[in-house]
């Protein structure tokens, strides 16, 4: 993890810093939108060609698994319907044309428009990823606030648990949580997607390892922030330890964790698959894995599209949050 530590540093060179994207706010937004569109396009294009060129036969999956013996005419009909008999480049152009009109195509496996399949998966996934993120932050912040700089023992314990959390395979956590808290103790439903209660364990499965990562970066930046003179200033003003931690150090400490979270949300959506499998939840992760295994290209592409969009949006949100938390970001290039 890159622990991007931003310590205020007085620069002795007198070279003014320049920002990469100079220009009015409108221009910046336009550039940003164009960049996002490019990333979307590239992600989809990459997926399309890679999956098309990878060996594997979609027709078989289209026509059912074992116990199927389709006729040659059926196979031909399938190839014609999904345009599999066309040159790959033409298939690609057709796909893009469809995409431009919001048409993601029809699933090879489900025979249903892709959005009909993925529509019901989107919300549960975002709920899961969102709650996992909330848990991760809650755990990370609790560790940071409660153990950093609280003496060698607590500090060591906090540090140790964080590393331990980060070293846990998410699916392993999921299985253990399911066995203990759902099957044995019965505190939570074993699986399913109904209500907040069913969301807790899968979100913890994904959130606990993530918490380890976030806590690690937050801890080191929190330590750094605590060592900053402004913290001493605040304490010299008569602030309590907790007030200093929450009011001053924390704000500085969550910035790297925020960057990490932006990355994590994108990957959470796809790595949610393990929690989705263990807890039998609907979700994009499962759709993605199943689609790749079955070479269900339209679904794969759509999931990639959704994840890329989420990634872009989350980065945008984090950017904004970053500016809210650290208003200095806005000043860059303003000759401060």
């Amino acid at each position, binding site marked *: 993890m890159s622990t991007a530590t931003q310590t*205020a540093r007085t620069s002795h060179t007198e070279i003014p810093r320049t920002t990469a994207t100079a220009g009015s706010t409108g221009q910046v937004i336009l550039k940003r939108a164009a960049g996002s569109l490019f990333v979307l396009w590239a992600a989809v294009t990459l997926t399309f060609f890679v999956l098309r060129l990878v060996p594997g036969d979609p027709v078989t999956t289209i026509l059912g698994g074992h116990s199927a013996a389709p006729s040659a005419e059926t196979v031909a009909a399938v190839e014609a319907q999904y345009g599999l008999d066309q040159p790959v480049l033409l298939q690609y152009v057709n796909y893009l044309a469809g995409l431009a009109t919001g048409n993601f195509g029809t699933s090879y496996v489900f025979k249903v428009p892709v959005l009909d399949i993925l529509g019901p998966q989107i919300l549960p996934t975002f709920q899961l990823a969102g709650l996992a993120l909330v848990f991760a932050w809650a755990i990370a912040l609790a560790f940071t606030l409660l153990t950093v700089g609280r003496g060698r023992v607590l500090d060591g314990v906090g540090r140790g648990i964080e590393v331990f959390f980060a070293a846990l395979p998410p699916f392993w956590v999921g299985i253990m949580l399911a066995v203990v808290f759902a099957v044995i103790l019965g505190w939570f439903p074993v699986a399913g997607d109904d209500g907040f209660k069913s969301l807790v364990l899968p979100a913890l499965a994904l959130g606990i390892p993530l918490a380890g990562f976030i806590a690690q970066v937050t801890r080191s930046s929190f330590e750094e922030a605590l060592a900053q*003179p402004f913290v001493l*200033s605040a*304490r*010299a*003003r*008569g602030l309590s330890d907790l007030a200093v931690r929450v009011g001053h150090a924390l704000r500085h400490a969550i910035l790297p964790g925020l960057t990490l979270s932006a990355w994590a949300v994108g990957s959470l959506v796809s790595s949610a698959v393990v929690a989705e499998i263990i807890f039998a939840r609907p979700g994009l992760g499962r759709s993605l894995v199943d689609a790749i295994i079955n070479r269900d290209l339209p679904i794969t592409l759509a999931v990639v599209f959704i994840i890329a969009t989420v990634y872009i949006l989350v980065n945008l949100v984090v950017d904004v949050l970053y500016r809210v938390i650290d208003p*200095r970001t806005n000043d860059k290039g*303003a000759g401060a």
Partner: protein
Amino acid sequence: MTDYRTNNDGGGTASAVPAGSAGEANSLLNIEGLNVSFATPRGTVDVVKDVSLALAPGKALALVGESGSGKTVTARTLVGLNAANAKVNAGRLEVLGRNALKLGERQWRGLRGKDIGYVLQDALVSLDPLRTVGQEIDEALRAHGVRGKAARLERVHQALLDAGIPDPEVRAKQRSGELSGGLRQRALIAQATVLNPQLVIADEPTTALDATVQAQILELLAGLKEQGRGLVFISHDLAVVSHLADEVAVMQGGRIVESGRAAEVLSNPRHEYTRALINAIPTGAAKGRRLSAGAPVSAASLSGSPGRATEFSETAPAIVARDLVKSYPGPGGTRRTVVDGVSFTLERGRTLGIVGESGSGKSTTARIALGLTQPDAGSVTLGGFAWSGTGADQVSEEQRRRHRPDIQLVNQDPLSSFDPRFSVGRVITDALEAGSIGTSGDRTERAVTLLDQVGLPPSLFNRRPLTLSGGQRQRVAIARALALQPRVLLLDEPVSALDVSIQAQVLDLLADLQSQLGLSYLFISHDLGVIHHVSDDVLVMKDGKVVETGTAADIFTNPQTDYTRQLLAAVPELPAREPAAHVAAAPGLTVKEAS
């Protein structure tokens, strides 16, 4: 929490308590036999030893000393803000009439900000850079239960005004990073004094500020004193101390070695350490005099080595810069001109000092002179050959490269200029290799010689620069610069980060090298004392332009422009003292330095 404990056997204190202040009923501070130690994984470290202090209202006490002398730890003990692993014990530790040894964290909190204001060194990092100064000040009010948003806002604005900040409504909404250095430092003082504390403690309140700003801040602090508050401040700058302090305590190695009335101590220092400190201050008056007690280094050992082939002219000036202009794109498509028509000539064997406050363009000028920044207009010749220019005069890096050994740089932060992988020896042999000087076999020997030349023992050869002290690092940087047998050294604030005694040693070293090797120095500093001390000629810069130029004597005794006069006036000076007799009485004093 810090462990505070009464020192039961702390009776027989050897330290001087300022006469007449101990035991006064209304004294703000009454400290006897203070010891502070820190528990580390490697054992206990005693940082403050047997310190006794006292302070009356309306008085200022200065703690003077160099890095590691224990002055900051002493100051923090007075607000109960030492690290958790600190152990404090004392025969008596009375702060504002209360027994500080018995104060719990909650009680300390009640005192901090309300009765004791604490001002740190650098406002850029001592105010939360993410919050507005208004929020910072407001926080002190809220922490001490001042109710009413509007009332608090009123007081915030008043505090800013009191600290000499105009437009408090506007400034309160700005963050420290958006304020100029002076305003920022005022805001820092405002947040510490908004509740009118009886005691203000300031840790190096003017360090790193430009001279004119420093003068303003000193005035502000003096104002606090006049309001009847007690002021404890820490400084390494004796001139600053002489301006503000009533009492001085000089600390060395955790102990107070001398204390008393400021005027008395500074004009007639009794302890040899105090004398050495005073003597080490570079000033115009001390020009040409050695600042430190060390013996001059000898460059004789180098005379035997073969000279490097060079086209550097023996007749032309070392550097001639003509009409240099450099600008950078600013926000909104504007351009900010950083260097604007700067011309100067550095004569061979002489020192040209460039002085100016931050933002004056002196460092950019230096980079152009070094050929690291391409000017927008103007030209530079180095020892008679074209070095940098524009248009037809443009010099490519390839052309410049073979001449690079002729001009070398020593900057403020030598550590960052060393490849982190390199040992001290490797830093120097690498430079030798870059200049194709010597053979791979004898470079080690040459490197040892160079180390010797800058006064470093061969035992440092395999050390990592990180493990060296600041002064040692600067010597290594000088040795590296010398390795290429340059004709010109560009010294960019080379002593700004050093304690005064170390600064004295390095300045002496540079003077020795110049006289023995016939080097030309382009010396950049914001410190007028240093510039006065080292320069033959001086260039005063402001906002990218040359304000005034002339010989050092002319500039310092007969300034022609208002700006220069203003600049000179802002420099606090030590009171006249007994001349060099005391200095001679302190031979062979070695100042220990911890970095």
